[in-house]
C-alpha cells in the first residue's frame, strides 16, 4: 500500500485518479484498505466507523455514498479479497499441467504467497469472517468450498475413495485455514512460506499415502530453497 498523506488532505496528491469514476474507485479502495488494516489489528468487534473514516481519510458522507454501514464495507472487503485470492489459486492450479499432487502444490503455493503478501485482508477472510455475522461466515464458507473443490480429483488416486468421509476435503482445507490464521494472528506472515511443504504433505496424505505425500513435500521444500 502506498503511504497516505496527513489527514488535512483528504485526496492523496500526485497519482491523482482521473475523472469521477476514478475518484470513486480510489475512495472505495482506501475505505477497504482501512477496514482491513483496522479489523485485522484490533478485531471486528472493536473497530468503529469513526476509526475507518479517519484512517481512510474520507468524510462520513463519502463513506455512506459507497457503503450503508461498517458491515457492508467489511463484506465488500471480503468479496474483493476472496475474488483476488481464488483467481490466483485457481489460476495456478489450471496452469500446472502435471499430475494432481503437483497441481495442488501449485495451488497451495499461490495461496500461501497471496496470504503472505496481503496479511491484513487475509486475516479478515480467514479469521474474522467466521465470527462476524451470518453473511460474513457464509462468504468464508463459500471460499473454503472453492478451495476444497480443487481437491476432489485426489479421490481418484485413493483405492478406497468411496469410503473416505464426505467432509474430508473441506475439513483438510479447514486445517490449512487454521495454520494460516494462527500465523497471521501471531503477526508472523513472514513464516507462512516455510510452512508450505508440511501443509502440502498434510493435504495430500489421505489421498496418495504417506510416502508419496512426503516426496511431494520434499519437492516443494526444494523449490522454496531454490527460489
Amino acid at each position: 500500500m502506498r503511504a497516505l498523506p496527513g489527514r488535512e488532505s483528504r485526496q492523496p496528491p500526485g497519482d491523482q485518479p482521473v475523472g469521477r469514476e476514478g475518484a470513486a474507485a480510489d475512495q472505495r479502495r482506501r475505505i477497504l484498505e482501512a477496514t482491513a488494516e483496522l479489523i485485522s489489528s484490533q478485531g471486528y468487534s472493536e473497530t468503529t466507523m469513526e476509526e475507518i473514516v479517519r484512517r481512510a481519510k474520507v468524510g462520513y458522507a463519502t463513506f455512506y455514498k459507497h457503503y450503508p454501514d461498517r458491515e457492508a464495507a467489511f463484506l465488500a472487503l471480503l468479496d474483493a479479497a476472496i475474488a483476488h485470492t481464488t483467481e490466483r489459486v485457481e489460476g495456478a492450479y489450471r496452469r500446472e499441467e502435471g499430475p494432481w499432487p503437483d497441481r495442488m502444490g501449485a495451488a497451495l503455493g499461490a495461496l500461501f504467497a497471496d496470504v503472505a503478501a496481503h496479511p491484513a485482508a487475509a486475516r479478515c477472510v480467514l479469521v474474522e469472517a467466521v465470527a462476524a455475522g451470518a453473511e460474513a461466515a457464509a462468504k468464508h464458507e463459500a471460499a473454503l468450498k472453492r478451495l476444497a473443490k480443487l481437491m476432489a480429483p485426489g479421490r481418484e488416486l485413493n483405492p478406497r475413495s468411496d469410503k473416505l468421509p464426505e467432509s474430508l476435503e473441506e475439513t483438510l482445507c479447514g486445517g490449512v485455514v487454521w495454520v494460516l490464521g494462527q500465523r497471521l494472528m501471531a503477526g508472523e506472515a513472514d513464516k507462512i512460506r516455510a510452512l508450505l511443504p508440511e501443509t502440502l504433505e498434510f493435504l495430500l496424505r489421505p489421498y496418495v499415502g504417506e510416502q508419496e505425500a512426503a516426496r511431494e513435500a520434499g519437492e516443494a521444500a526444494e523449490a522454496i530453497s531454490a527460489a
Partner: protein
Amino acid sequence: MPAEELGPLPAGRHGYSREQVAHHQRERLIAGLAEAVAEKGYAAVTLSDIVRHAKVSRRVFYANFESKEQCFLAAFDVVVDHLRELIAEAAASESEWPQQAIAALRAVLAFLAEEPNLARLCLLESRIAGPVVIARFNEAVSEAAPALAKGRAERPEGERLPDSTEDSTLGSLISLAQREVAAGEAERLGALLPDFAELLLLPYLGPADAARLAR
C-alpha cells in the same frame, strides 16, 4: 447454566456469607454474558445486556470484572475447564491411545452438541473477542497437542511425521466444528464423531486403520 435457573438472589437476611454471595454474583454474570452473547453476538453485547441477563447491578459487575472482555474471558475459562475435565475423564476410561482419543472426542462433541450457545461462545465468539482471549484459546489448543502426539508411537512411520502434524490436525477438527456451529448446526456435532475420529487418527494409524476404528 442459564441465570434463570439460579433464581433471584434472596434479599435481606439470607444466611449466606459475603463470599458465597460474591461467588454467586460472579457465576450469574458469567451466565448472563453467555446468554447475551448467544442472543446478539459478542460484538454487539453491551454491559447493560450482561447485567440485565444476570439480574445484578452495574456496580456488582464492576466489583467482579473490569470490562466486557474480562467477563468473556472468565466465561471462556469456565467452558474450557469443563472440557478439560471431560477429556481427562474420557481418556482415563480407556487404556489404548486410539480409544482414548476417540473417547475424548466423543465427550467434547457431545458437550458442544448439547450446549450450542457455549459451543458458539468458545469456538466462534472467542475468535473476535480480542487478543487476550485469542491467546487463551491458542493455549488451550496447544495443551491438547502432546496428548495427540502420543499417537506417533502407534506406528514406525509416525516418527517422521512433520512437526506441524498435531497443529494442522487439531486445526482441521476445530475448523470443522466452527463451521457446523456457524451454520447453526451445533446439534449435529455428536453425530459427526466418526468423521472427526477418522481425521484425528489418520496421520497416526494410516487411512485403513483410522477408518476401521472410527466407524
